[in-house]
């Protein structure tokens, strides 16, 4: 199989806008699943509400498209009832960090054996571009027309603090690294959290001076920095520019996990 065979071909093309990064994230996730040689009949993809959450509908496995923010709670039920299933959760920043924030920290605390892929486009894309908890300070959205004044959530730091076993962040530009990260997350016991910065040309890029899709990819490329490098710079007393996206692995550890088949 190749990852393309994991798609429900009859459902493509999908509903995502031109240049939306979500499709790339699905490619990378399915590539990793495909590399592992998993049986599609034993995988379940679960999501909440939002653009990101339409993803399971395009995948040939059993899939559960649930209510806003609750994907992790549904996934907990699936995984605890049948731990032999491979459960992957697709979610977005609004879904995971706003309405689903509580479920997120508790799933990390339980460290339940799920792989959570968060497509962070820094905005509520599907509902028309409202500001989300990850909209950066100064970011323009329909509800922050003068630039967001609220500090944004660092989802990876949150996952680490809450107890997830594997936490990593990449962008849609880093497709190879992202595929490797999902691969690692799928095989690592406990909750694996993979945050991906994705471009939203329609609702974010357009309002934030990214004229072309490529401009936003260019931004992700030039404004991301491997975490270790950022830490080294800080360690040497240097300054990392504000707004730098720190990418790479945040934690990989072996806290006791739930729902792991012994």
């Amino acid at each position, binding site marked *: 199989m190749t990852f393309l065979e994991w798609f429900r071909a009859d459902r493509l093309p999908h509903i995502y806008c031109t240049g939306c990064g979500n499709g790339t994230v699905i490619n990378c996730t399915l590539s990793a699943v495909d590399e592992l040689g998993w049986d599609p009949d034993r995988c379940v993809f679960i999501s909440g509400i939002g653009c990101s959450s339409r993803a399971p509908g395009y995948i040939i496995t*059993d899939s559960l498209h649930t209510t806003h923010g609750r994907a992790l*709670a*549904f996934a907990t039920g699936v995984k605890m*009832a049948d731990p032999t299933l491979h459960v992957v959760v697709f979610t977005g920043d609004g879904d995971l960090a706003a309405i689903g924030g509580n479920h997120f920290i*508790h799933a990390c605390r339980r460290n339940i054996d799920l792989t959570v892929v968060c497509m962070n486009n820094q905005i509520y894309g599907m509902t028309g571009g409202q500001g989300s908890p990850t909209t950066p300070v100064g970011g323009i959205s329909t509800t922050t027309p003068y630039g967001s004044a609220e500090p944004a959530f660092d989802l990876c730091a949150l996952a680490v603090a809450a107890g997830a076993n594997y936490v990593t962040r990449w962008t849609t530009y880093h497709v190879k690294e992202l595929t490797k990260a999902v691969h690692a997350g799928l095989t690592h016991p406990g909750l694996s959290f993979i945050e991906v910065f994705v471009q939203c040309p329609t609702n974010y890029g357009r309002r934030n001076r990214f004229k072309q899709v490529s401009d936003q990819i260019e931004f992700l490329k030039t404004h991301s920095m491997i975490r270790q490098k950022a830490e080294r710079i800080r360690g040497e007393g240097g300054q990392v520019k504000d707004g730098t996206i720190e990418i790479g692995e945040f934690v990989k550890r072996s806290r006791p996990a739930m729902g792991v088949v012994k």
Partner: protein
Amino acid sequence: MAVKLPKAGGTFIQMEDEIAGIAAVIGASWTGMRAMTATSGPGFSLMMENIGFAIMTETPCVIVNIQRGGPSTGQPTMAAQGDMLQCRFGSHGDYSIIALSPASVQEMYDLTAKAFDLADRFRVPVFLMADEIIGHMRERIEIPDAVPHGERRAADRGVLPFAAGPDDIPGFTTFGKGYRVHVTGLTHDERGYPATTSPKIHEDLVMRLVRKVEDRRHEIADYEVVNPDAEVIFVTYGAPARSVSQVLHDDADPRIGHLRLRLVWPFPDSAIRSFPDAKVFLVPELNLGQIAREIERHTTVEVRSLPKIGGDLHTPRELAEASGRCIAP
């Protein structure tokens, strides 16, 4: 349950809130397991969105609501029956569900087993709408060695996952068995794929969700009739049934009858016709007349609500007086 379920080979999880609780129940149900959650009052309100999800996705599950005084946090340790309409209409949109109402500890046991069977058969959330009196009461019960345990009908291979036969209920496509089903709360076609802008698909789906329960309301009706020739009839469900039983026990007047509903939704309107000589229906409820209003829809006979809120149960004397006022001297 935390103590007993793991010993019986089940899984118990204390989720972070009621929203997550019902979500996990729905998730677990899709792996083919029987799953339930229990709550009271405000927790029930929190569950409403996902209850709608369970209805739309036709997920079998059981939800126990030990009703307390409301609105809001109200009286956490006092009895009420104020959620009877909420369980029927609380989630948004049109739908139909099944609700049972136990009046004793024995029925709490029996109806829980029945609730699971109904949920599996109809692929719908089934509510066990008890009240604080029944919920906190201890009394003699007999536990049989085994309870009848129906199985979910598995979907036939090759049939679309949400295509229903003449009985309007699709076979169940358990996760992990190769059905590769897509389950969504959006309006979906028979393949399970979202189809949100077609009025026809939406109408067909919602009508089927309603029909599969409502059309069988006489078949699944569960009620007890005492003195069918009576003129004054008490209609009860849950704890007030006990007070009425006491009234009839203390004064065996053939002019007073009792219709005791063990299944409240879908409302068994045929039960009302069990009393051809009825002159008045008296409906004692621990709310301001929620089911009395439903009875009014189905009869031309006078319906008199006997509401009582605050946490106390109607005493047999109160009810005896109420029925006495209706009987011509």
